[in-house]
């Protein structure tokens, strides 16, 4: 019998290796799988390449992972924000590498990784410094940049409901990078608010079919990053 549900966060992350590429969902705190990120801190893997839209806030979640010096390289579109202190400090000291990618190109590269497309052309960034060193090419009189797919060893994603097959629904704009990151990772680990029985999710309303998901762990009351930050929390 197929059963992708796992008992708890440590069981979901026991085998992460040093040097892994980790796709982490979320747009700021929205959709951020904060319990899984904390689980990854506990698990201890190092020298990670993390692909995520931002670099975390305060001293919890992704910022805490970076602060714990587990991340060698960030691939993201927007590495600073009002509550983001950890990444900028390490970056200025030269202790973390940054690959800056326009947000839509980041999303498309991840989707391409999941869809077996090794490279594609996009108008985004053509004629800018972010296209430097990349192949540019004209189609029908317009310039485009060739971008390569991104794949991850691991994806950490937050969703709403999941079943034993790994079928997922999401919650509002928390969906953001979740579905495409599940597609693009060798092992997609998803924290859901509710594990439901097989058949409970309407096949019409499944957002991410279970084929893209490897492990589902229930976290009924995920923490809100902004609340933790307001409380001055840090992890661990």
């Amino acid at each position, binding site marked *: 019998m197929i059963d992708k549900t796992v008992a708890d966060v440590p069981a979901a992350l026991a085998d992460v290796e040093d040097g892994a590429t980790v796709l982490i969902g979320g747009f700021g705190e929205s959709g951020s799988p904060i319990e899984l990120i904390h689980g990854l801190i506990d698990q201890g893997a190092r020298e990670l390449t993390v692909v995520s839209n931002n670099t975390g806030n305060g001293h919890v979640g992704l910022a805490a992972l970076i602060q714990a010096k587990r991340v060698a390289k960030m691939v993201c579109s*927007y590495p600073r924000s009002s509550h983001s202190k950890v990444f900028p400090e390490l970056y200025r000291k030269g202790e973390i590498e940054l690959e800056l990618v326009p947000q839509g190109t980041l999303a498309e590269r991840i989707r391409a990784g999941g869809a077996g497309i090794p490279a594609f052309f*996009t108008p985004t960034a053509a004629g800018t410094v972010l296209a430097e060193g990349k192949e540019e090419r004209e189609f029908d009189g317009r310039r485009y940049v060739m971008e390569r797919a991104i794949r991850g060893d691991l994806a950490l994603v937050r969703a709403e409901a999941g079943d034993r097959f790994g079928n997922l629904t999401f919650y509002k704009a928390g969906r953001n990078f979740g579905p495409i990151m599940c597609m693009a990772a060798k092992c997609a680990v998803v924290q859901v608010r509710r594990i439901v029985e097989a058949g409970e999710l309407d096949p019409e309303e499944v957002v991410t079919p279970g084929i893209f998901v490897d492990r589902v762990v229930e976290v009924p009351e995920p923490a809100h990053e902004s609340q933790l930050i307001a409380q001055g929390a840090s992890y661990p």
Partner: protein
Amino acid sequence: MTERPNRLGLSRAQMAWRAAQDIPDGAYVNLGIGIPELVAAHVPEGREVVYHTENGILGFGDAPPPGEEDPDLINAGKKPVTLLPGAAFFHHADSFAMIRGGHIDYCILGAMQVAANGDIANWSTGAEGAIPAVGGAMDLVAGVRHVLVITEHTTREGEPKLLERCTYPLTAPGVVSRVFSSFGVIDVTPEGFLLKEIAPGVSLDQVAAATAAPIRAARDLKEVAAPAIEKEAAGA
């Protein structure tokens, strides 16, 4: 983000009001962070506009009442929003398919610099030591059909923001069609900047002096018909 003292020309709210007059009924619109966010409040009655945000919502509305914010119902500026009837959620690759695929009719953005050839710089000053961050800016200006800019006519230090050529790193070359500045409405034409409307109390000489590129006055130059608008709340 408070209003500058003794400012010349249009207020931020008046710029937003003027930009809003250009949004036709039925348009799909993406509003940037800052002054552009004020545009929604000024779209003329009787016009229905659908707002898109990069993080995966079409059809959102105003901020919710205090206490009803949902961290998974936010816009790209990470501010809480509400949903209007007919809204939809989607993942990041689909969201940027809307942008890159030319499905969004208008984006209204702030800018650091706009050049007479339509180049725009709004993501980086290129300064040493700054944390580079691009977000969805490059995707928006490369993909949306009409790229409109709202900006003070000069920087806080009085430096021109409308230039012959941008000195900051480009967001995209040749994409801006119109600028709503504190001094008026400026079209980007094959012959460079064309002043279509001028702000009350501003002279042509003042516009020319504050613009670091030739700027012609349209033959049918009008005064901006902006109503007196109460100053918006700081940081609105």
